[in-house]
């Protein structure tokens, strides 16, 4: 019952009659008559919703503007410090991922930033190496062509190697050949090389330490 009433209320003046008819068509046996909603009410309702939509849009725009301003400030700050902290890198990374909204604007920002950094440091090429394993690349490489190319590659990859492609490994193929050949032999890679990487690395470290100890018994 309540449902019907709500439907009636929310319909705009044009759709109101249609909604009412629909209601009546659906449940002709219902005793209660639908509540009448005045034209005024529904107009107010429509206007309110419109305003709300405009408001949210404006709010989002403000938010974006704010974010951009903050980022610009951050970059200015960093330029002064001549250092490029990891958070900014993360932000830039997340901005490349969040490409949908305004990829061009962001690209411009980052490219500008990169250009300035480049001039300052007088380093060539598109990427720079930082401390550790971070690399910074210009947005010039990450245009829409790049993303389209990536999408096309992914399509190919998923069709040929994705789910349902029924594939095995080269190792298995060769091992089967060994098994069925005239001179039967063991599997090509008897132990999977990518198994237990961490344990192997740990063992390697311990081995090195032990050898070092053997060489310098004083320590």
């Amino acid at each position, binding site marked *: 019952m309540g449902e019907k009433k709500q439907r009636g209320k929310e319909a705009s003046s044009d759709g109101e009659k249609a909604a009412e008819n629909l209601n009546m068509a659906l449940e002709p046996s219902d005793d209660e008559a639908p509540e009448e909603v005045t034209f005024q009410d529904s107009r107010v309702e429509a206007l309110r919703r419109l305003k709300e939509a405009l408001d949210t849009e404006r709010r989002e725009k403000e938010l974006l503007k704010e974010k951009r301003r903050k980022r610009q400030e951050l970059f200015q700050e960093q330029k002064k410090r001549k250092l490029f902290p990891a958070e900014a890198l993360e932000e830039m990374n997340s901005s490349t991922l969040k490409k949908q909204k305004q990829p061009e604007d962001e690209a411009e920002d980052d490219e500008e930033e990169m250009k300035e950094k480049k001039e300052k440091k007088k380093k060539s090429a598109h990427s720079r190496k930082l401390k550790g394993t971070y690399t910074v690349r210009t947005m010039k490489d990450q245009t829409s062509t790049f993303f389209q*190319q990536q999408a096309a590659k992914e399509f190919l990859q998923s069709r040929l190697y994705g789910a349902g*492609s029924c594939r095995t490994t080269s190792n298995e193929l060769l091992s089967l050949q060994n098994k069925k050949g005239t001179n039967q032999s063991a599997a090509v890679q008897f132990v999977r090389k990518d198994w237990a990487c961490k344990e192997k690395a740990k063992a390697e470290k311990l081995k090195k330490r032990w050898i070092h100890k053997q060489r310098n018994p004083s320590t």
Partner: protein
Amino acid sequence: MGEFKVHRVRFFDYMPSAIRAMAFNSRTERLAVARADGAVEIFNFSDNYYQEKVIPGRDGRAVEALCWVGQRLFSAGLNGEITEYDLENLKPQYVIEAYGGPIWTISCNNQGTHLAVSCEDGTVKLFEILKEKIQFQRNLDRQKSRIISLSWHPSGAQIAAGMMDMIRIFDTETGRATHRLLVERGVGASKSREVVVWSIAFLSNNTIVSGDSAGKVQIWDGLMGTLVRTHLVTKWDVLALAVSQDESSLIAGTSEGTIVQFQFLSSTVDRQDRDHEWVRTRTFKNHSHDVKALALTDTAVVSGGMDTQLVVHPLLDKVEKNTQEAAQRKIAFPHRSLVGCAKKAGLLLFQFPDHLELWRLGESDGNDHICCSALSPCGGWLVYSTVSSVRLYKLQHNNNISVNKVRPQQRIIQLRSVHQLCFSADSSKLFASSSQSSVVVVALNQLECKYLQTLRHKSGHSCPTAVAIHPTTNNLISVHADQQIFEFSLQQKEYTEWSRKLQKQGLHGLWLKRDTPVTSVGFNPKNPTHIILNDTFMFCIIDQSLPLPESSTILYNQMTLRSLPAPERTRQSHAFKICKNFQHVLSMSLLDDLSLVVVERPLLDVMAQLPPPVRQKKFAT
């Protein structure tokens, strides 16, 4: 032959790149092959299938399709660009954006007037072929999904395009799509996925042949827009199709690595025309992984794919049986050396597309791949070239290796398209090949350079595959793709007595039958009459002081000679001492201390690192 200490090197983990596309030019007998790393190779089918030219790749430039227009070569890739190559200087001549998103295929009409490219955004774009460039003409009607393959009708009036779940036929004049042929999806689990028409061919009698991801080869009537016949050839995808020039035979390549042949035959005895239909005839299992590119020449089936090997399989009904021509050829390694050896210093240089391994140094500039590299015999100089530049480095090795980049003179920087580099035996000069068969000589102490005009390679002769200058006699030894050997005296400017004697007698039949080219020539510092050659499956020491083998003598006689008594041995010895102990040899050099360095690349190691092949359930496995 003598005994050598051998350093057997197997840690050069060179990985060849998968074959993505190929195009055969029947007029010039050249096959163009595009690899996954963007490199384009040209093989000369009339010169013993020699890999004549290699245009190195570039990071981020992968080629999806190739096409010849007369003697011009074009390619297109997922980066949305069409490239025309400069085959003289071995680099891209220009690049033009198609603005349709990633390009899936490119094809030229029979008349040679227009290029059609099919794009991710659903358009087929037509480009007019002009003298020095191509120009966008117009789009055909835009479609809703990507266009993966296309084929011109021989008349040029229609284009058949393979898409997702369907084939469209376009009228090239109006640009309108005239027919829509619906392709059935696979059975079972594949029914929920769209079927991709990976390849398509339009024949002159208006038959369309398509290969799709459901493993079907379908024959369609292009006039009526109806399906004539379906052949299910594999459980996996049919990735490539090729049709012979006379349209009597066609081949389909699958993800299983098989190639299925169909022939246009008559089913009745009278052999009337209207009874002809496409009948499945032979199946070739030439590859272990997906076949992505095919070509059907007059005499052979040429295929390539994810297992990186180029296979030429002669059709036995087109060639004389039991001849050299009838043998299947597998080209697994490049026909030029990727390994440099500093003979005096005992250093090795491994060439990869994007870096050199001496002790892991020298990242290439930008994203251009390395064409060729060389290490001086003393180990003091390292040079490599890319499409755009030549780099020279001075090495100092006391306990560690330190590298200093040398800033060469202007003229050397301007050297472009250098595809051969070699140091003189005393490490004082660097020879670099340049365009128009000239060689630039650089003196390495003062870094001056003077131009030296060498012999122009006579056209009509087979291409040289390995060349070297003897350190003492100053004779130039060259070995060619047809396995001929020449010795030329640089001082007298004529062929030597020995060379003429060899030509007169002719090389042994078995020598000429070898199917891999000689990739390097070297010399023995202790014996000036020795010439050391190697190809992928053997190495040979030619002793110029011994008699040449006649056609009736046994060529590979080293094993038998060992068991003979001394006088008999000297009587039967001939000049060609061949050793086949090492297989898949990428390079071989003789160091100054008379030890041999053999760099092998076992095919098994390459195969173990290839991407996943399809899984076939076989009994008892």
